[in-house]
C-alpha cells in the first residue's frame, strides 16, 4: 500500500539515483536543521556563477548533508504534501512525473496553493466525450449532481445519528436533513439543488455546537478567511480532501476539470470538489469532532489574527496526522468482500462514475453502510 508523505521541515527535495531524498536545511553553527530558509539574493549573483555546473558545489555539500538526509523510497509514495519551504529542481519534477506522483503545495498559512499534476498517462477519448455529453445534457448533469448531494446529505445524517444515540438530542436537525434529502428527488435544476444543499448544510453546521463538547464560537461557515477555530479546521480539512480526491482522479481516466455539481473549470479541478462533497462528513467532519471532543487540538494550536483564525504549524501537524490515519482506516467492502481503506473508497467512487458515464451502470454515491 502506497503512502502519502507530508513534509513540514524546510529543506531540499531531490532525486538521488533512482529514488527521492529529503535534506533538511542545516544551520552551519548549531549543526541542527534550521527553521529558516537560507536566503540568497539571486539578483546579485554575477552571470558566470549562474552558468557554473552546480554539481561540483553540490558534491561538497553532499558530505555535510549526508547525515541528515532521509530517503523516501519512490515506489512507496502515493503523493507528496509540502507544508514547509522546499527547494527542488526540474530533475526532481521530471522524476516525479515519470513516477506519476502528484505534489501538493500549501502556503505559509496552510492554504492550498496548487498541485504539480504530472503528465496524464491515463487518457481515454471515449470517456472524455462521455463526460462532456453528460455535462451538456441538463437532465444527465442533474442526475449525477443529485446523486452527489444524496450521498453528502445521507452521510451528514449518519454523523448526526451517531451523536443522537449518545445522549445528544439532534432529532430536529436529523428531521430537517431527512426532509432535504427527500426534496432532492423533485429538484429541477442544479441551482435549485445547490440551494437545498446550502440550507441543509447551514442547518447541519448549526448542530455542531451540540455535538462538540467544548464551548465553541461557531455559528456559521465562513471561509476567505475562516473566522474561528472550527471554520479554520473545516477549511484546512476540506482542502486536504480535495487534494486526496484529485490524486485519485489522476490515477484513472476521468478528466478533473469537467464537473456536474460545481461549475466546471473555475480556478480548480472542480470534479474533485464534486466527489469530495460525498466524503466530507465521513472524513473531515469526523476528524474535527474527534479533535475537539478528545481535546487533541487546543486553543494554542491556532493563530488569531485581526479578522481570521488559522491553524498554526503544530495544529496543522496534528490535523494531518489524524487525517492520514483516517484515510488508512479500513473497512470491509460488502460487495467485493475485501478490506479496503477510506482512501480506496474514494477511488471506487471514481470507478462508479466512469461506469455511469459509459452507460454500464447507474451511479450510486457512497453512503455509509455501517
Amino acid at each position: 500500500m502506497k503512502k502519502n508523505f507530508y513534509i513540514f521541515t524546510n529543506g531540499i527535495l531531490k532525486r538521488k539515483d533512482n529514488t527521492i531524498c529529503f535534506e533538511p536545511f542545516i544551520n552551519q553553527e548549531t549543526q541542527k536543521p534550521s527553521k529558516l530558509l537560507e536566503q540568497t539574493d539571486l539578483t546579485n549573483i554575477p552571470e558566470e556563477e549562474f552558468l557554473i555546473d552546480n554539481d561540483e558545489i553540490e558534491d561538497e555539500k553532499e558530505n555535510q548533508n549526508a547525515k541528515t538526509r532521509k530517503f523516501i523510497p519512490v515506489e512507496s509514495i502515493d503523493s507528496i504534501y509540502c507544508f514547509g519551504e522546499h527547494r527542488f529542481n526540474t530533475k526532481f519534477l521530471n522524476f516525479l512525473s515519470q513516477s506519476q506522483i502528484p505534489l501538493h503545495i500549501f502556503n505559509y498559512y496552510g492554504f492550498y496553493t496548487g498541485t504539480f499534476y504530472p503528465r496524464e498517462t491515463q487518457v481515454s477519448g471515449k470517456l472524455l466525450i462521455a463526460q462532456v455529453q453528460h455535462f451538456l445534457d441538463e437532465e444527465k448533469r442533474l442526475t449525477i449532481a443529485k446523486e452527489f448531494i444524496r450521498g453528502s446529505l445521507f452521510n451528514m445524517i449518519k454523523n448526526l445519528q451517531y451523536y443522537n444515540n449518545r445522549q445528544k438530542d439532534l432529532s430536529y436537525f436529523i428531521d430537517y436533513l431527512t426532509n432535504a434529502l427527500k426534496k432532492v428527488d423533485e429538484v429541477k435544476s442544479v441551482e435549485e439543488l445547490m440551494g437545498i444543499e446550502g440550507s441543509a448544510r447551514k442547518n447541519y453546521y448549526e448542530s455542531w455546537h451540540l455535538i462538540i463538547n467544548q464551548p465553541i464560537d461557531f455559528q456559521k461557515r465562513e471561509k476567505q478567511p475562516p473566522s474561528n477555530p472550527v471554520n479554520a479546521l473545516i477549511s484546512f480539512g476540506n482542502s486536504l480532501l480535495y487534494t486526496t480526491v484529485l490524486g485519485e482522479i489522476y490515477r484513472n481516466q476521468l478528466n478533473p476539470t469537467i464537473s456536474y455539481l460545481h461549475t466546471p473549470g473555475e480556478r480548480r479541478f472542480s470534479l474533485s470538489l464534486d466527489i469530495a462533497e460525498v466524503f466530507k462528513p465521513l472524513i473531515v467532519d469526523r476528524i474535527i469532532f474527534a479533535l475537539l471532543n478528545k481535546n487533541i487540538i487546543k486553543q494554542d494550536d491556532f493563530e488569531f489574527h485581526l479578522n481570521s483564525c488559522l491553524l498554526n504549524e503544530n495544529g496543522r501537524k496534528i490535523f494531518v496526522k489524524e487525517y492520514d490515519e483516517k484515510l488508512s482506516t479500513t473497512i470491509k467492502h460488502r460487495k467485493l468482500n475485501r478490506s479496503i481503506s477510506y482512501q480506496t473508497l474514494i477511488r471506487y467512487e471514481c470507478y462508479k462514475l466512469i461506469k455511469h458515464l459509459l452507460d454500464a451502470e447507474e451511479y450510486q454515491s457512497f453512503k455509509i453502510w455501517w
Partner: protein
Amino acid sequence: MKITGTHINYYFHCKRHLWFFAHHILMEHTSELVAIGKFISESTYERKQHELHFVEEDFEFVLDFFDKNTNTIHEIKKTNKMEELHIWQLKFYIYRLKELGFHNVKGIIDYPKLKRLIKVELTEKDEEKLNEVIKEIHLLVNQKKPPKVIRKSYCRKCSYFELCYV
C-alpha cells in the same frame, strides 16, 4: 483501431475487458499480478533481443523474442492458468507473420517460472477462426455500451475486478 495481440487475448478472456481496453479505460497499472508478469517477461531470456515491433495498417503487435535458427516466435507468460488465451495470442502472431510473407513460423509459449513450454502451430481452421474473431472484435468495440459482467471465478484476479464489481 489497430488490433494487437492483447485484443485477441482479451477477446477470449472477457468481452467486457476487451471493450474497456479498446476504449483506453486501462486498469492494468493497478495490478500487482500484471506487474509481476511484466517483470518475468522482461527479466528472462536476457540474451535474446526482446520486443520486436510490427506495425501494419490494421494490426500492430510485439513479439517477446524470435529465434532465427528454429524460426520460432517466443511468448513469455507467468503461469499457464489461461493457456488457451496464450495459444490464441501466439496463433495470431504466426498468422500475421504469414500474411507478411514469413512462412513456416512456429510458436513456443515459455513459462520460465514453471520450467515448461508449449508448442503452437497454426492450422487452416485456426486462420478462419482468427479472421472471424477479428471481425467480431471490431463489432464489439463499436458497441455503445460495454458488455455485461461475466461473473467468473477468475474475475477476482483480474485488474478490472474492482471496476466491474464495485
